């Protein structure tokens, strides 16, 4: 067991982990932050997407010990300070960018990463950025639309409402 500490959503946390403990297991089981999900075991689905030191990573493909000392952001920390939904979260609700909600935390974390570096992405850029995030419910239409809307683009003309 190794003692690790990190900042998760701005809060200092510590824990004892094995070498093989994945960051996602540390979040879900040690910290009970169950918003981060596990949808596969081959690092493809992106349900586990979080931010580590500002970078988008798959928390199922990183060991907790490697996040020792890091700043980690999860879906639980995405709301505004007053608890209201962030612009991106609100756009997902407004444009029905989620159904079962299982991929949603990963989508939010991936999309917020994109918007940080590319504040007005095109449809193609959004679709490319989401290559590692699989959604089985929405057909992506409303996810792409929500991200465009969150970046201030007019989505009223997008195919059929």
């Amino acid at each position, binding site marked *: 067991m190794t003692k690790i500490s990190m900042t998760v959503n701005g809060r200092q946390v510590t824990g004892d982990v094995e*070498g093989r403990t994945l960051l996602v297991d540390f979040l879900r089981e040690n910290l009970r932050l169950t918003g981060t999900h596990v949808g596969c075991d*081959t690092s493809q689905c992106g349900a586990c997407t979080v931010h580590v030191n500002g970078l*988008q990573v*798959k928390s*199922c*493909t990183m060991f907790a010990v*490697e996040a020792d000392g890091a700043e980690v952001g999860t879906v639980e920390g995405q709301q505004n300070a007053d608890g209201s939904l962030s612009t991106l979260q609100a756009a997902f609700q407004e444009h029905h960018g989620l159904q079962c909600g299982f991929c949603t935390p990963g989508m939010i974390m991936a999309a917020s990463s994109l918007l940080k570096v590319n504040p007005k992405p095109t449809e193609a850029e959004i679709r490319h950025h989401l*290559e590692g995030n699989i959604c089985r419910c929405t057909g992506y239409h409303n996810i792409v639309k929500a991200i465009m809307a969150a970046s201030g683009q007019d989505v009223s003309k997008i195919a059929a409402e």
Partner: protein
Amino acid sequence: MYAFDVTRPKTVADAVAALAGEDAQALGGGQTLIPTLKQRLASPAVLVSLSAIDEIKGVCQDGNVLSIGGGTTHATVAAEAGAYPALAALAANIGDPAVRSRGTIGGSLANNDPSACYPSAALASNATIVTNNREIAADDYFQGLFTTALNEGEIITGVKFPIPQAANYQKFVQPASRFSLVGVFVAKYADGVRVAVTGASENGVFRWSEAEAALSASFSAAALEGLTASADGLINDLHGDAEYRAHLIKVMTKRAVAAAK
């Protein structure tokens, strides 16, 4: 996963020392190794993480050579290898943003997956693979499926890419994994053109010498017209048989030549 320890040395020397231990294995970005461990296909006692070693990270240009640290992530190469645009573009299309945040060039070259992207760039550029104790020319480095010239415990600390006059990478993706079903990297140097093919062969990345000869004589897609890539030894799987892969090699090579910058 079986149980193991993870150490995080800060220098190459400490990492090499740690790798000398029994059943120790290097951990780069983990984007290949961790899924493998989950399937219990590897059972190291210690993983020596290279992610805290700053001396093997970064991109720098020295005249006509672009040097990339072995621990440099795909995302960093995509962002900082502007001096070699085809290489930056290749890195920008490996996996997805999260994979690119963690996965490293050293890990990719050490792993030498037959469908990986970097091996084609290294081979087409005749890059030099720099390790903790020697330099290996790409032509000598790739030795078949998941096999390289690396010795046990040897770490890739850097890769030196001679910058070509023009180059391009064309990746035709396998629809599920999004690795290359066939990827072709074409690089044009003053002394000739090199063409490296990934994804296609049962022996991993290889050079298509007929195409190199034709393109060295005339660097144009038309120069490839009369050639056909041989289907011998190419992969037959769910996603494409050898004949299809051979066909794609030619199509992708033509496209790479047409797009080379």
